[in-house]
């Protein structure tokens, strides 16, 4: 099982490093832009000028809070951040099983004496480790930017850890859906399309719920409803949010394991 985990980490390595470096640079850049907006007051003034839809998009309806940390937290809801992390999770998820089955390489590996569920669990573990590493590098970008611009003194180091934790949980939730699609299918394209559709639909459900009161109750159905970095900075990690995201990640991963163990592998 350890061999599979190590091998999967090697396979994920290039993509993970590329995304990690990109997010590191992106987060560093975002922190540097803080002062160019004229600090908090300038940012909040600008925010008030934005249309409601744009503020909902950034989940910043209440402003950027009272300190720099609030502004920095919004970069973890920025579409670039979400697309990059969800994309990595989905690619890794599709590679767990469906892509291997599609190209036929699953046959040689799964004919080794290792239970299918253990094989998949090892690959899931590798994905979870890769995502944790990528997010740690991304958070390090924010931290470095804050340190270089002198704002780190205003931030508690624990805040970085909390943001990292919630970003990891939301990414694992998407990875779980990807793992489920991958464990069920034999087509790599489909194993990417299904979780990508889930992530996009989930994001827009949350977006709509924030904009339109009629849709508000449906926002609860979106995983992104439970991912609010700004509130993490302001009020700490919500146990409900962390619990829901952990539950989604666990249920989807466990369902994928059960499904993969019992399915026919035909291609």
């Amino acid at each position, binding site marked *: 099982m350890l*061999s*599979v985990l190590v*091998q999967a980490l*090697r*396979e994920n390595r290039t993509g993970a490093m590329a995304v990690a470096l990109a997010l590191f640079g992106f987060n560093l850049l975002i922190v540097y832009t803080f002062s160019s907006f004229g600090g908090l007051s300038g940012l909040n003034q600008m925010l008030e000028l934005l249309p409601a839809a744009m503020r909902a998009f950034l989940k910043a309806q209440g402003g950027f809070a009272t300190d720099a940390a609030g502004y920095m937290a919004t970069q973890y809801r920025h579409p670039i951040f979400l697309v990059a992390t969800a994309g990595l999770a989905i690619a890794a998820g599709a590679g767990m099983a469906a892509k*291997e089955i599609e*190209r*036929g*390489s699953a*046959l*040689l*590996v*799964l*004919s*080794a*004496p*290792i*239970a*299918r569920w253990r094989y998949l669990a090892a690959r899931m573990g590798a994905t979870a480790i890769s995502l944790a590493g990528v997010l740690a590098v991304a958070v390090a970008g924010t931290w470095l930017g804050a340190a270089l611009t002198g704002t780190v003194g205003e931030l508690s180091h624990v805040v970085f850890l909390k943001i990292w934790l919630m970003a990891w949980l939301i990414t694992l939730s998407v990875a779980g859906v990807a793992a489920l699609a991958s464990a069920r299918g034999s087509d790599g394209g489909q194993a990417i399309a299904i979780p990508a559709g889930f992530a996009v639909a989930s994001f827009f459900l949350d977006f709509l719920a924030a904009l339109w009161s009629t849709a508000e109750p449906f926002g609860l159905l979106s995983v992104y409803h439970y991912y609010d970095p700004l509130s993490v900075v302001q009020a700490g990690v919500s146990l409900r949010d962390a619990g829901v995201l952990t539950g989604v990640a666990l249920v989807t991963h466990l369902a994928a394991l059960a499904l993969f163990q*019992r399915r*026919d*592998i*035909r291609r």
Partner: protein
Amino acid sequence: MSEAAITLEGVRKRFGPVQALDGMDLSVPSGSIFGFLGPNGAGKTTSIRVLTGFIRAGEGQVRVLGLDPWRQAVDVHQRTGFLPDAVAFGSGFTGQEFLDYTARLHGLSARPARQRELLERLELSGEALGRKVKYYSSGMAKKVGLVRAMQHAPELLIMDEPTEALDPLMRQALFAILREERERGATVFFSSHVLSDVEEVCEEVALVRAGRVIRTGGVEALRAAAPRVLTVRLRGEPPAVMGVPGAEEVGREGPLVRLRVTAEAAEVARALAALDIEDFTYERPDLEELFLTMYGDGAAPERAAEVAGA
């Protein structure tokens, strides 16, 4: 050759509207090299996927080395070596890394002695193994797949089209290895549509059609029981009816007439004496001829079943 290494009893498997296996019965003796023959779509690959635990049989009983390959897949995989028809690898591997990885999955050291021996026999150099597998030719990939299947010295080898993409020298090298495996006590399940290969290396074969075995037996026995091939060259225009008892004409070109004959040799000789022949050959069919007899010209399953019962 005491007990069976593989047993299938009444195995059925349906994929949507397609009945892939339709009451497959098969028994493969331990310590044999067993050929598994059939045209495309006959159910060979589905049978192999059932034997290797990749597919669950819909009905019937499956035993591989006395184990249920679906429920006891890990134990079955520990004792078997599998070569799929199309060898494909995960991304990023070199050939050596792939072999080491799969050796470790079998609980072996990264480079077991058997791996080194097989690499030498199949002429896989260190330089070639150092290249990424994505740059391999299909022949190279097949050789790495063969080493992967045999490096843990399994009790049973299940091979789907093992000679495909191999050059003639490598085919001979593989046959020698397989014969040694048999001497060691291993069983080789050799699925192929390359009849000459099956004829050369297998002692027994099963012929498959439409998801079931239609005939099994020793290669020699099958050939002996099959119609002979009589080719006659006449001095003049051949008569419309050749008058050879129990013969089925399968070809005619000028003075040459080709017949499939089930009658005794003496009867054939008597019939030929009445004709003005210049030359003739009277041969046992090779496996290819037998294959064509059973599958060619759209032979009905019922007819095939009759042959099976013969």
